[in-house]
Protein backbone atom coordinates (compact mmCIF):
# COMPACT_ATOMS: atom_id res chain seq x y z
CA UNK A 1 0.00 0.00 0.00
CA UNK A 2 2.74 2.48 0.88
CA UNK A 3 4.65 2.41 -2.42
CA UNK A 4 7.16 5.13 -3.24
CA UNK A 5 5.67 7.67 -5.60
CA UNK A 6 8.41 7.56 -8.24
CA UNK A 7 7.45 4.93 -10.81
CA UNK A 8 4.50 5.60 -13.17
CA UNK A 9 2.87 2.37 -12.04
CA UNK A 10 3.01 3.42 -8.42
CA UNK A 11 1.59 6.80 -9.32
CA UNK A 12 -1.28 5.10 -11.08
CA UNK A 13 -1.92 3.00 -7.99
CA UNK A 14 -2.00 6.03 -5.73
CA UNK A 15 -4.33 7.75 -8.21
CA UNK A 16 -6.71 4.81 -8.01
CA UNK A 17 -6.38 4.80 -4.25
CA UNK A 18 -7.30 8.43 -3.91
CA UNK A 19 -10.30 7.96 -6.20
CA UNK A 20 -11.25 5.00 -4.10
CA UNK A 21 -10.83 7.12 -1.01
CA UNK A 22 -13.26 9.74 -2.30
CA UNK A 23 -16.05 7.32 -3.21
CA UNK A 24 -17.32 6.49 0.30
CA UNK A 25 -17.45 10.18 1.19
CA UNK A 26 -19.64 10.84 -1.84
CA UNK A 27 -22.07 8.23 -0.56
CA UNK A 28 -21.93 9.63 2.97
CA UNK A 29 -22.26 13.26 1.94
CA UNK A 30 -26.10 13.59 1.86
CA UNK A 31 -26.53 11.95 5.25
CA UNK A 32 -23.71 13.87 6.87
CA UNK A 33 -24.92 17.14 5.40
CA UNK A 34 -28.47 16.66 6.69
CA UNK A 35 -27.25 15.52 10.10
CA UNK A 36 -24.91 18.49 10.27
CA UNK A 37 -27.49 21.12 9.30
CA UNK A 38 -30.53 19.76 11.14
CA UNK A 39 -28.98 18.02 14.16
CA UNK A 40 -25.46 19.09 15.05
CA UNK A 41 -25.70 22.73 14.02
CA UNK A 42 -28.90 23.24 16.09
CA UNK A 43 -27.21 21.45 18.99
CA UNK A 44 -24.19 23.76 18.79
CA UNK A 45 -26.43 26.80 18.35
CA UNK A 46 -28.50 25.73 21.35
CA UNK A 47 -25.41 25.45 23.53
CA UNK A 48 -24.18 28.84 22.26
CA UNK A 49 -27.53 30.59 22.85
CA UNK A 50 -27.78 29.19 26.36
CA UNK A 51 -25.08 31.66 27.42
CA UNK A 52 -26.89 34.68 26.02
CA UNK A 53 -29.78 36.93 26.85
CA UNK A 54 -31.46 36.58 23.46
CA UNK A 55 -33.28 39.73 22.40
CA UNK A 56 -34.72 39.85 18.88
CA UNK A 57 -34.02 43.48 18.03
CA UNK A 58 -31.60 44.65 20.69
CA UNK A 59 -28.91 42.08 19.97
CA UNK A 60 -27.81 39.15 22.09
CA UNK A 61 -25.95 39.79 25.28
CA UNK A 62 -23.44 37.41 26.83
CA UNK A 63 -24.58 36.64 30.36
CA UNK A 64 -22.53 33.53 31.11
CA UNK A 65 -24.27 30.99 33.29
CA UNK A 66 -27.16 33.25 34.32
CA UNK A 67 -29.68 31.32 32.21
CA UNK A 68 -28.63 28.09 33.90
CA UNK A 69 -28.90 29.45 37.44
CA UNK A 70 -32.22 31.07 36.56
CA UNK A 71 -33.65 27.83 35.13
CA UNK A 72 -32.32 25.62 37.90
CA UNK A 73 -33.58 27.89 40.68
CA UNK A 74 -36.99 28.44 39.08
CA UNK A 75 -39.48 26.56 41.24
CA UNK A 76 -41.60 25.57 38.23
CA UNK A 77 -38.56 23.89 36.72
CA UNK A 78 -37.79 22.26 40.06
CA UNK A 79 -41.35 20.91 40.14
CA UNK A 80 -40.89 19.76 36.54
CA UNK A 81 -37.84 17.71 37.58
CA UNK A 82 -40.00 15.88 40.10
CA UNK A 83 -42.78 15.33 37.56
CA UNK A 84 -40.29 14.10 34.95
CA UNK A 85 -38.89 11.61 37.47
CA UNK A 86 -42.33 10.36 38.54
CA UNK A 87 -43.47 10.10 34.94
CA UNK A 88 -40.23 8.60 33.63
CA UNK A 89 -39.75 6.07 36.42
CA UNK A 90 -43.47 5.29 36.75
CA UNK A 91 -44.07 4.64 33.08
CA UNK A 92 -40.74 2.85 32.57
CA UNK A 93 -41.18 0.45 35.49
CA UNK A 94 -44.88 -0.05 34.76
CA UNK A 95 -44.34 -0.65 31.05
CA UNK A 96 -41.49 -3.09 31.67
CA UNK A 97 -43.44 -5.12 34.22
CA UNK A 98 -46.61 -5.13 32.13
CA UNK A 99 -44.59 -5.83 28.98
CA UNK A 100 -42.96 -8.81 30.70
CA UNK A 101 -46.33 -10.15 31.83
CA UNK A 102 -47.69 -9.71 28.30
CA UNK A 103 -44.66 -11.44 26.81
CA UNK A 104 -45.07 -14.41 29.18
CA UNK A 105 -48.78 -14.54 28.41
CA UNK A 106 -48.49 -14.26 24.63
CA UNK A 107 -45.38 -16.38 24.11
CA UNK A 108 -45.95 -19.23 21.69
CA UNK A 109 -46.29 -20.29 18.10
CA UNK A 110 -50.06 -20.69 17.78
CA UNK A 111 -51.73 -18.61 15.07
CA UNK A 112 -54.31 -17.22 17.46
CA UNK A 113 -51.51 -15.94 19.68
CA UNK A 114 -49.94 -14.14 16.72
CA UNK A 115 -53.24 -12.42 16.00
CA UNK A 116 -53.59 -11.35 19.63
CA UNK A 117 -50.00 -10.05 19.60
CA UNK A 118 -50.78 -8.00 16.49
CA UNK A 119 -53.82 -6.46 18.17
CA UNK A 120 -52.07 -5.81 21.49
CA UNK A 121 -49.22 -4.03 19.68
CA UNK A 122 -51.57 -1.39 18.22
CA UNK A 123 -50.86 1.32 20.84
CA UNK A 124 -47.17 1.28 19.92
CA UNK A 125 -47.78 2.01 16.23
CA UNK A 126 -50.45 4.64 16.74
CA UNK A 127 -49.34 8.25 16.56
CA UNK A 128 -49.04 9.75 20.06
CA UNK A 129 -51.42 12.57 19.16
CA UNK A 130 -54.15 10.05 18.33
CA UNK A 131 -53.48 8.15 21.54
CA UNK A 132 -53.77 11.43 23.43
CA UNK A 133 -57.22 12.13 21.96
CA UNK A 134 -58.31 8.59 22.73
CA UNK A 135 -57.28 8.83 26.37
CA UNK A 136 -58.81 12.27 26.80
CA UNK A 137 -62.14 10.68 25.93
CA UNK A 138 -61.57 7.63 28.10
CA UNK A 139 -60.74 9.97 30.98
CA UNK A 140 -63.94 11.99 30.40
CA UNK A 141 -64.68 13.45 33.82
CA UNK A 142 -68.43 12.87 34.13
CA UNK A 143 -69.85 9.65 35.48
CA UNK A 144 -70.80 8.47 31.98
CA UNK A 145 -67.24 8.79 30.59
CA UNK A 146 -65.77 5.48 29.49
CA UNK A 147 -63.54 4.77 32.49
CA UNK A 148 -65.83 6.54 34.92
CA UNK A 149 -68.82 4.48 33.85
CA UNK A 150 -66.72 1.41 34.65
CA UNK A 151 -65.94 2.88 38.06
CA UNK A 152 -69.63 3.72 38.45
CA UNK A 153 -70.46 0.01 38.08
CA UNK A 154 -68.09 -0.65 40.98
CA UNK A 155 -69.92 1.98 42.98
CA UNK A 156 -67.12 4.54 42.81
CA UNK A 157 -67.72 8.19 42.11
CA UNK A 158 -66.55 9.95 38.98
CA UNK A 159 -62.83 10.69 39.05
CA UNK A 160 -61.50 13.94 37.57
CA UNK A 161 -58.62 12.11 35.89
CA UNK A 162 -57.12 15.08 34.09
CA UNK A 163 -58.64 18.01 35.99
CA UNK A 164 -57.50 17.11 39.48
CA UNK A 165 -53.89 18.28 40.05
CA UNK A 166 -53.33 15.37 42.45
CA UNK A 167 -54.34 12.74 39.91
CA UNK A 168 -53.45 14.17 36.47
CA UNK A 169 -49.79 13.09 36.64
CA UNK A 170 -50.72 9.50 37.43
CA UNK A 171 -53.28 9.52 34.63
CA UNK A 172 -50.45 10.49 32.30
CA UNK A 173 -48.28 7.69 33.72
CA UNK A 174 -51.08 5.20 32.97
CA UNK A 175 -51.23 6.32 29.35
CA UNK A 176 -47.44 6.04 29.06
CA UNK A 177 -47.56 2.48 30.37
CA UNK A 178 -50.31 1.66 27.87
CA UNK A 179 -48.23 2.98 24.98
CA UNK A 180 -44.92 1.38 25.90
CA UNK A 181 -45.85 -1.99 27.41
CA UNK A 182 -46.61 -3.58 24.00
CA UNK A 183 -43.35 -2.19 22.61
CA UNK A 184 -41.40 -3.75 25.48
CA UNK A 185 -43.37 -6.95 24.98
CA UNK A 186 -41.96 -7.36 21.47
CA UNK A 187 -38.35 -6.95 22.62
CA UNK A 188 -38.88 -9.28 25.59
CA UNK A 189 -40.58 -11.85 23.34
CA UNK A 190 -37.46 -11.84 21.17
CA UNK A 191 -35.46 -12.46 24.35
CA UNK A 192 -37.78 -15.27 25.44
CA UNK A 193 -37.47 -16.91 22.00
CA UNK A 194 -33.74 -17.20 22.57
CA UNK A 195 -33.98 -19.06 25.88
CA UNK A 196 -32.57 -22.58 25.57
CA UNK A 197 -35.56 -24.93 25.83
CA UNK A 198 -33.46 -27.79 27.14
CA UNK A 199 -32.92 -25.71 30.28
CA UNK A 200 -36.67 -25.75 30.93
CA UNK A 201 -36.64 -29.49 30.46
CA UNK A 202 -33.69 -29.91 32.80
CA UNK A 203 -35.41 -27.68 35.34
CA UNK A 204 -38.54 -29.80 35.09
CA UNK A 205 -36.47 -32.94 35.73
CA UNK A 206 -34.96 -31.32 38.81
CA UNK A 207 -38.52 -30.69 39.95
CA UNK A 208 -38.24 -26.93 40.45
CA UNK A 209 -41.30 -24.77 40.91
CA UNK A 210 -42.60 -22.42 38.23
CA UNK A 211 -41.36 -19.44 40.20
CA UNK A 212 -37.85 -20.92 40.49
CA UNK A 213 -37.87 -21.70 36.78
CA UNK A 214 -38.69 -18.06 36.01
CA UNK A 215 -36.20 -16.75 38.54
CA UNK A 216 -33.20 -18.95 37.72
CA UNK A 217 -33.69 -19.87 34.04
CA UNK A 218 -35.82 -17.29 32.24
CA UNK A 219 -34.74 -14.06 33.92
CA UNK A 220 -30.97 -14.60 33.55
CA UNK A 221 -31.47 -15.62 29.93
CA UNK A 222 -33.44 -12.50 28.97
CA UNK A 223 -31.22 -10.13 30.96
CA UNK A 224 -29.76 -8.53 27.80
CA UNK A 225 -33.25 -7.84 26.43
CA UNK A 226 -34.30 -6.40 29.80
CA UNK A 227 -31.26 -4.11 29.86
CA UNK A 228 -32.10 -2.80 26.37
CA UNK A 229 -35.71 -2.18 27.35
CA UNK A 230 -34.52 -0.36 30.46
CA UNK A 231 -32.04 1.81 28.54
CA UNK A 232 -34.62 2.80 25.94
CA UNK A 233 -37.24 3.50 28.60
CA UNK A 234 -34.92 5.68 30.70
CA UNK A 235 -33.91 7.90 27.80
CA UNK A 236 -37.51 8.11 26.60
CA UNK A 237 -38.71 9.01 30.07
CA UNK A 238 -36.32 11.95 30.34
CA UNK A 239 -37.31 13.67 27.15
CA UNK A 240 -41.04 12.89 27.38
CA UNK A 241 -42.93 15.68 25.65
CA UNK A 242 -45.64 14.74 23.18
CA UNK A 243 -47.58 12.49 25.58
CA UNK A 244 -47.90 15.25 28.15
CA UNK A 245 -48.38 18.02 25.61
CA UNK A 246 -51.32 16.35 23.87
CA UNK A 247 -52.95 14.91 26.99
CA UNK A 248 -52.77 17.73 29.52
CA UNK A 249 -50.60 20.48 28.04
CA UNK A 250 -48.77 20.55 31.40
CA UNK A 251 -51.88 21.43 33.37
CA UNK A 252 -53.88 21.58 35.54
CA UNK A 253 -51.92 24.22 37.47
CA UNK A 254 -48.62 22.89 36.15
CA UNK A 255 -49.17 19.58 37.91
CA UNK A 256 -48.04 17.56 34.88
CA UNK A 257 -45.44 20.00 33.59
CA UNK A 258 -42.31 18.02 32.69
CA UNK A 259 -38.87 19.36 31.83
CA UNK A 260 -39.49 19.54 28.08
CA UNK A 261 -42.99 21.04 28.20
CA UNK A 262 -41.62 23.67 30.57
CA UNK A 263 -38.73 24.43 28.18
CA UNK A 264 -41.18 24.57 25.28
CA UNK A 265 -43.41 27.07 27.07
CA UNK A 266 -40.41 29.17 28.02
CA UNK A 267 -39.03 29.19 24.47
CA UNK A 268 -42.09 29.44 22.28
CA UNK A 269 -44.76 31.09 24.41
CA UNK A 270 -42.62 33.38 26.54
CA UNK A 271 -39.91 33.90 23.90
CA UNK A 272 -37.14 33.30 26.43
CA UNK A 273 -34.81 31.61 23.92
CA UNK A 274 -31.76 31.74 26.19
CA UNK A 275 -33.50 30.17 29.17
CA UNK A 276 -35.17 27.50 27.06
CA UNK A 277 -31.82 26.68 25.43
CA UNK A 278 -30.19 26.33 28.84
CA UNK A 279 -32.96 23.96 29.93
CA UNK A 280 -32.48 21.89 26.76
CA UNK A 281 -28.72 21.73 27.27
CA UNK A 282 -29.23 20.49 30.83
CA UNK A 283 -31.49 17.74 29.50
CA UNK A 284 -29.00 16.87 26.76
CA UNK A 285 -26.18 16.55 29.30
CA UNK A 286 -28.26 14.35 31.61
CA UNK A 287 -29.29 12.13 28.67
CA UNK A 288 -25.68 11.77 27.52
CA UNK A 289 -24.49 11.03 31.04
CA UNK A 290 -27.20 8.46 31.57
CA UNK A 291 -26.62 6.74 28.22
CA UNK A 292 -22.89 6.45 28.87
CA UNK A 293 -23.47 5.16 32.42
CA UNK A 294 -26.06 2.60 31.37
CA UNK A 295 -23.89 1.41 28.49
CA UNK A 296 -20.93 1.10 30.85
CA UNK A 297 -22.99 -0.92 33.33
CA UNK A 298 -24.35 -3.04 30.50
CA UNK A 299 -20.88 -3.86 29.16
CA UNK A 300 -19.61 -4.62 32.65
CA UNK A 301 -22.65 -6.81 33.25
CA UNK A 302 -22.12 -8.66 29.97
CA UNK A 303 -18.47 -9.25 30.74
CA UNK A 304 -19.32 -10.83 34.06
Amino acid at each position, binding site marked *: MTATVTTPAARRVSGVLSKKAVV*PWLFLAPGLLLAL*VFKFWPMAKGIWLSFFDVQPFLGDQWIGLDNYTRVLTDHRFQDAIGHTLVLGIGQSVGAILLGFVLALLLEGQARSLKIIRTAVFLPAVTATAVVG*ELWRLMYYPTSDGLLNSGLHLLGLGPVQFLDNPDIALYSTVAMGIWIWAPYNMV*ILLAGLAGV*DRSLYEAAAMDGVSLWQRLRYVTLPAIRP*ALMIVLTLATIRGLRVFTEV*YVLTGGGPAGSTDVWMTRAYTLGFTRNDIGGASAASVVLLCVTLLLTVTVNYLRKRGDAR
Partner: protein
Amino acid sequence: MSAPAIEPVRTPVPDAKSLAAEARRTTPARFDTALGWSDRPGLAWTFRILLCAIALGIFAAPFLTIFSGALTPNPSGSSLSFLPHDSTLLNFKVAGERGIWDYLGNSLVIAGGGLLLQLVVCTLAAYALARHRFRGRALIMLLFMMTLMLPEEVIAIPLSLVLGDVPVVHLDLKGTVWGVILPLGAWGFSVMMLTEFMRDIPAEIEEAARLDGVGELRMLWQVILPLCKPALGVAGVLGFIMIWDQYLLPLIAAKDPTDYTVTVALSILRTDPEVGSGVVLAGAVIALIPSLIVYLLLQRSLVTGIAAGATKG
Protein backbone atom coordinates in the same frame (compact mmCIF):
# COMPACT_ATOMS: atom_id res chain seq x y z
CA MET B 1 -39.50 -12.62 3.05
CA SER B 2 -37.04 -15.20 4.27
CA ALA B 3 -34.46 -13.13 6.05
CA PRO B 4 -31.88 -15.23 7.79
CA ALA B 5 -29.74 -12.18 8.47
CA ILE B 6 -32.30 -10.43 10.69
CA GLU B 7 -32.85 -13.07 13.24
CA PRO B 8 -34.00 -11.68 16.56
CA VAL B 9 -31.44 -13.59 18.53
CA ARG B 10 -28.30 -15.19 17.24
CA THR B 11 -27.28 -18.54 18.57
CA PRO B 12 -23.52 -18.86 18.41
CA VAL B 13 -23.39 -22.59 17.74
CA PRO B 14 -25.65 -23.76 14.92
CA ASP B 15 -25.53 -27.32 16.21
CA ALA B 16 -27.05 -26.36 19.53
CA LYS B 17 -29.80 -24.53 17.72
CA SER B 18 -30.79 -27.42 15.52
CA LEU B 19 -30.61 -29.70 18.53
CA ALA B 20 -32.92 -27.38 20.42
CA ALA B 21 -35.32 -27.31 17.46
CA GLU B 22 -35.15 -31.09 17.33
CA ALA B 23 -35.91 -31.25 21.03
CA ARG B 24 -38.83 -28.87 20.61
CA ARG B 25 -40.41 -31.12 17.99
CA THR B 26 -40.20 -34.19 20.16
CA THR B 27 -40.81 -32.87 23.67
CA PRO B 28 -44.22 -31.88 25.02
CA ALA B 29 -45.42 -28.33 24.55
CA ARG B 30 -44.88 -27.42 28.19
CA PHE B 31 -41.19 -26.73 27.52
CA ASP B 32 -41.93 -24.30 24.70
CA THR B 33 -42.77 -21.32 26.85
CA ALA B 34 -41.39 -19.86 30.04
CA LEU B 35 -44.64 -20.46 31.91
CA GLY B 36 -45.17 -23.88 30.29
CA TRP B 37 -48.58 -23.00 28.88
CA SER B 38 -50.57 -26.02 27.80
CA ASP B 39 -52.43 -26.01 24.50
CA ARG B 40 -54.93 -28.61 25.69
CA PRO B 41 -58.25 -27.61 27.29
CA GLY B 42 -57.95 -27.48 31.04
CA LEU B 43 -57.64 -25.07 33.95
CA ALA B 44 -54.42 -23.37 32.76
CA TRP B 45 -55.79 -23.18 29.23
CA THR B 46 -58.99 -21.45 30.37
CA PHE B 47 -56.98 -19.11 32.59
CA ARG B 48 -54.83 -18.13 29.63
CA ILE B 49 -57.82 -17.42 27.40
CA LEU B 50 -59.27 -15.23 30.12
CA LEU B 51 -56.02 -13.27 30.48
CA CYS B 52 -55.75 -12.88 26.71
CA ALA B 53 -59.27 -11.46 26.63
CA ILE B 54 -58.32 -8.94 29.33
CA ALA B 55 -55.18 -7.97 27.37
CA LEU B 56 -57.25 -7.44 24.24
CA GLY B 57 -59.79 -5.45 26.22
CA ILE B 58 -57.09 -3.14 27.58
CA PHE B 59 -54.93 -2.65 24.49
CA ALA B 60 -57.12 -3.20 21.44
CA ALA B 61 -60.73 -2.48 22.45
CA PRO B 62 -60.18 1.28 23.02
CA PHE B 63 -59.53 1.56 19.28
CA LEU B 64 -63.07 0.38 18.65
CA THR B 65 -64.34 3.39 20.60
CA ILE B 66 -62.50 5.71 18.19
CA PHE B 67 -64.29 4.17 15.21
CA SER B 68 -67.68 3.91 16.84
CA GLY B 69 -67.44 7.44 18.24
CA ALA B 70 -66.51 8.76 14.80
CA LEU B 71 -69.57 7.07 13.30
CA THR B 72 -72.01 8.08 16.03
CA PRO B 73 -73.96 11.30 15.52
CA ASN B 74 -72.64 13.91 17.93
CA PRO B 75 -71.23 11.73 20.70
CA SER B 76 -69.70 13.08 23.83
CA GLY B 77 -67.96 11.30 26.64
CA SER B 78 -71.36 10.01 27.62
CA SER B 79 -72.33 8.16 24.47
CA LEU B 80 -68.97 6.53 23.71
CA SER B 81 -69.27 2.80 23.32
CA PHE B 82 -67.58 -0.04 21.52
CA LEU B 83 -70.21 -0.27 18.80
CA PRO B 84 -71.94 2.67 17.10
CA HIS B 85 -75.65 3.12 17.84
CA ASP B 86 -76.88 4.46 14.55
CA SER B 87 -74.00 5.18 12.26
CA THR B 88 -73.51 8.28 10.15
CA LEU B 89 -70.71 9.88 8.19
CA LEU B 90 -71.73 13.36 9.31
CA ASN B 91 -68.71 13.72 11.58
CA PHE B 92 -66.38 13.13 8.64
CA LYS B 93 -68.25 15.75 6.62
CA VAL B 94 -67.84 18.33 9.39
CA ALA B 95 -64.19 17.36 9.81
CA GLY B 96 -63.80 17.82 6.05
CA GLU B 97 -65.26 21.31 6.31
CA ARG B 98 -62.64 22.09 8.95
CA GLY B 99 -59.93 21.15 6.43
CA ILE B 100 -59.03 17.70 7.68
CA TRP B 101 -58.37 16.45 4.13
CA ASP B 102 -55.87 19.25 3.55
CA TYR B 103 -54.09 18.26 6.75
CA LEU B 104 -54.11 14.64 5.61
CA GLY B 105 -52.63 15.82 2.30
CA ASN B 106 -49.81 17.57 4.19
CA SER B 107 -49.23 14.40 6.18
CA LEU B 108 -49.12 12.16 3.12
CA VAL B 109 -46.70 14.43 1.25
CA ILE B 110 -44.45 14.62 4.30
CA ALA B 111 -44.63 10.89 5.00
CA GLY B 112 -44.02 9.97 1.35
CA GLY B 113 -41.28 12.48 0.69
CA GLY B 114 -39.67 12.05 4.09
CA LEU B 115 -39.60 8.29 3.82
CA LEU B 116 -38.18 8.38 0.29
CA LEU B 117 -35.45 10.82 1.29
CA GLN B 118 -34.72 8.88 4.45
CA LEU B 119 -34.38 5.56 2.63
CA VAL B 120 -32.14 7.01 -0.09
CA VAL B 121 -29.90 8.92 2.31
CA CYS B 122 -29.59 6.10 4.82
CA THR B 123 -28.99 3.45 2.13
CA LEU B 124 -26.20 5.51 0.57
CA ALA B 125 -24.56 6.07 3.94
CA ALA B 126 -24.97 2.44 4.96
CA TYR B 127 -23.42 1.27 1.69
CA ALA B 128 -20.33 3.35 2.31
CA LEU B 129 -20.08 2.25 5.95
CA ALA B 130 -20.63 -1.44 5.22
CA ARG B 131 -18.80 -2.04 1.96
CA HIS B 132 -15.92 0.44 2.05
CA ARG B 133 -12.91 0.73 4.30
CA PHE B 134 -11.80 4.28 4.85
CA ARG B 135 -10.25 6.41 7.54
CA GLY B 136 -12.69 7.85 10.06
CA ARG B 137 -15.32 5.15 9.58
CA ALA B 138 -15.79 4.59 13.30
CA LEU B 139 -16.17 8.32 13.87
CA ILE B 140 -18.85 8.63 11.16
CA MET B 141 -20.67 5.67 12.68
CA LEU B 142 -20.60 7.44 16.04
CA LEU B 143 -21.95 10.63 14.46
CA PHE B 144 -24.92 8.78 13.00
CA MET B 145 -25.48 7.07 16.33
CA MET B 146 -25.48 10.50 18.00
CA THR B 147 -28.29 11.72 15.74
CA LEU B 148 -30.48 9.32 17.69
CA MET B 149 -29.63 11.15 20.89
CA LEU B 150 -30.63 14.51 19.41
CA PRO B 151 -34.38 14.14 18.90
CA GLU B 152 -36.52 17.15 18.06
CA GLU B 153 -37.54 17.58 21.70
CA VAL B 154 -34.00 18.35 22.83
CA ILE B 155 -33.07 20.70 19.98
CA ALA B 156 -36.52 22.17 19.35
CA ILE B 157 -35.73 25.82 20.00
CA PRO B 158 -32.51 26.15 17.96
CA LEU B 159 -33.95 23.84 15.26
CA SER B 160 -36.88 26.18 14.92
CA LEU B 161 -34.42 29.05 14.36
CA VAL B 162 -32.43 26.98 11.84
CA LEU B 163 -35.59 26.08 9.91
CA GLY B 164 -36.41 29.77 9.59
CA ASP B 165 -32.93 30.58 8.28
CA VAL B 166 -30.85 27.63 7.09
CA PRO B 167 -27.15 28.41 7.62
CA VAL B 168 -25.00 29.46 4.61
CA VAL B 169 -27.84 29.28 2.03
CA HIS B 170 -30.27 31.40 4.11
CA LEU B 171 -33.44 29.59 3.08
CA ASP B 172 -36.66 29.91 5.03
CA LEU B 173 -38.06 26.39 5.23
CA LYS B 174 -40.88 27.30 7.60
CA GLY B 175 -44.31 26.76 6.13
CA THR B 176 -42.95 24.34 3.52
CA VAL B 177 -43.02 20.55 3.70
CA TRP B 178 -39.21 20.63 3.41
CA GLY B 179 -39.02 21.97 6.94
CA VAL B 180 -40.33 18.62 8.14
CA ILE B 181 -38.88 16.34 5.47
CA LEU B 182 -35.23 17.41 5.53
CA PRO B 183 -34.61 17.02 9.31
CA LEU B 184 -35.95 13.45 9.02
CA GLY B 185 -33.44 12.51 6.30
CA ALA B 186 -30.53 11.22 8.36
CA TRP B 187 -32.04 8.71 10.77
CA GLY B 188 -29.35 6.92 12.75
CA PHE B 189 -31.47 3.84 13.33
CA SER B 190 -31.90 3.07 9.62
CA VAL B 191 -28.22 3.74 8.95
CA MET B 192 -27.22 1.32 11.74
CA MET B 193 -29.61 -1.39 10.70
CA LEU B 194 -28.86 -1.24 6.97
CA THR B 195 -25.10 -1.15 7.64
CA GLU B 196 -25.40 -4.21 9.82
CA PHE B 197 -27.38 -6.01 7.14
CA MET B 198 -25.15 -5.03 4.21
CA ARG B 199 -22.05 -6.11 6.09
CA ASP B 200 -23.34 -9.69 6.11
CA ILE B 201 -23.47 -9.88 2.29
CA PRO B 202 -20.54 -12.11 1.19
CA ALA B 203 -17.58 -10.29 -0.39
CA GLU B 204 -17.46 -12.86 -3.21
CA ILE B 205 -20.67 -11.51 -4.74
CA GLU B 206 -19.22 -8.02 -4.81
CA GLU B 207 -15.86 -9.21 -6.20
CA ALA B 208 -17.53 -11.14 -9.02
CA ALA B 209 -19.48 -8.04 -10.00
CA ARG B 210 -16.32 -5.90 -9.83
CA LEU B 211 -14.58 -8.27 -12.27
CA ASP B 212 -17.45 -7.62 -14.67
CA GLY B 213 -16.60 -3.93 -14.41
CA VAL B 214 -19.62 -2.87 -12.36
CA GLY B 215 -19.34 0.70 -11.04
CA GLU B 216 -20.24 1.86 -7.54
CA LEU B 217 -23.79 3.05 -8.22
CA ARG B 218 -24.71 -0.03 -10.24
CA MET B 219 -23.13 -2.18 -7.55
CA LEU B 220 -25.41 -0.64 -4.95
CA TRP B 221 -28.52 -0.57 -7.13
CA GLN B 222 -28.25 -3.95 -8.89
CA VAL B 223 -26.17 -6.11 -6.58
CA ILE B 224 -26.50 -4.96 -2.96
CA LEU B 225 -30.03 -3.53 -2.84
CA PRO B 226 -31.84 -6.59 -4.22
CA LEU B 227 -30.21 -8.59 -1.45
CA CYS B 228 -31.33 -6.02 1.13
CA LYS B 229 -35.05 -6.14 0.45
CA PRO B 230 -36.00 -7.48 3.90
CA ALA B 231 -33.91 -4.83 5.65
CA LEU B 232 -35.32 -2.11 3.41
CA GLY B 233 -38.80 -3.32 4.34
CA VAL B 234 -38.00 -2.97 8.02
CA ALA B 235 -36.45 0.47 7.52
CA GLY B 236 -39.48 1.50 5.49
CA VAL B 237 -42.13 0.44 8.00
CA LEU B 238 -40.30 1.74 11.07
CA GLY B 239 -39.47 4.96 9.21
CA PHE B 240 -43.09 5.49 8.22
CA ILE B 241 -44.36 4.90 11.75
CA MET B 242 -41.68 7.24 13.13
CA ILE B 243 -42.50 10.00 10.62
CA TRP B 244 -46.26 9.65 11.12
CA ASP B 245 -45.73 9.96 14.87
CA GLN B 246 -43.88 13.28 14.53
CA TYR B 247 -45.55 15.99 16.55
CA LEU B 248 -43.13 18.68 17.63
CA LEU B 249 -41.32 18.95 14.28
CA PRO B 250 -44.43 19.73 12.17
CA LEU B 251 -45.52 22.08 14.95
CA ILE B 252 -42.34 24.17 14.90
CA ALA B 253 -41.85 23.92 11.12
CA ALA B 254 -45.28 25.40 10.41
CA LYS B 255 -45.80 29.07 9.66
CA ASP B 256 -49.52 28.96 10.34
CA PRO B 257 -51.97 26.19 11.25
CA THR B 258 -52.74 25.32 7.62
CA ASP B 259 -49.24 23.81 7.42
CA TYR B 260 -49.97 21.30 10.20
CA THR B 261 -50.02 17.55 9.66
CA VAL B 262 -53.19 15.66 10.47
CA THR B 263 -51.88 14.44 13.85
CA VAL B 264 -51.06 17.99 14.97
CA ALA B 265 -54.32 19.30 13.53
CA LEU B 266 -56.32 17.12 15.95
CA SER B 267 -55.62 19.71 18.65
CA ILE B 268 -57.23 22.40 16.46
CA LEU B 269 -60.38 20.29 16.10
CA ARG B 270 -60.44 19.67 19.83
CA THR B 271 -60.19 23.33 20.79
CA ASP B 272 -62.83 24.33 18.23
CA PRO B 273 -65.91 25.08 20.37
CA GLU B 274 -68.30 24.46 17.48
CA VAL B 275 -67.48 20.79 16.95
CA GLY B 276 -68.15 17.87 19.26
CA SER B 277 -65.86 15.04 20.16
CA GLY B 278 -67.37 12.98 17.33
CA VAL B 279 -65.64 15.25 14.83
CA VAL B 280 -62.36 14.99 16.77
CA LEU B 281 -62.70 11.22 16.62
CA ALA B 282 -63.40 11.37 12.88
CA GLY B 283 -60.12 13.25 12.59
CA ALA B 284 -58.44 10.65 14.78
CA VAL B 285 -59.70 7.88 12.48
CA ILE B 286 -58.30 9.71 9.46
CA ALA B 287 -54.96 10.13 11.25
CA LEU B 288 -55.01 6.50 12.35
CA ILE B 289 -55.88 4.67 9.15
CA PRO B 290 -52.66 5.16 7.11
CA SER B 291 -50.44 3.89 9.92
CA LEU B 292 -52.91 1.08 10.59
CA ILE B 293 -52.75 -0.04 6.94
CA VAL B 294 -48.95 0.04 6.90
CA TYR B 295 -48.79 -1.86 10.18
CA LEU B 296 -51.26 -4.58 9.27
CA LEU B 297 -49.71 -5.15 5.83
CA LEU B 298 -46.13 -5.21 7.01
CA GLN B 299 -46.35 -6.04 10.69
CA ARG B 300 -43.92 -8.93 10.42
CA SER B 301 -41.07 -6.71 9.24
CA LEU B 302 -41.92 -4.19 11.92
CA VAL B 303 -41.76 -6.70 14.74
CA THR B 304 -38.56 -8.35 13.47
CA GLY B 305 -37.14 -4.88 13.01
CA ILE B 306 -37.79 -3.78 16.57
CA ALA B 307 -36.44 -7.05 17.90
CA ALA B 308 -33.35 -6.93 15.65
CA GLY B 309 -32.70 -3.28 16.38
CA ALA B 310 -33.00 -3.93 20.08
CA THR B 311 -30.86 -7.03 20.34
CA LYS B 312 -28.15 -5.55 18.16
CA GLY B 313 -28.16 -2.35 20.19
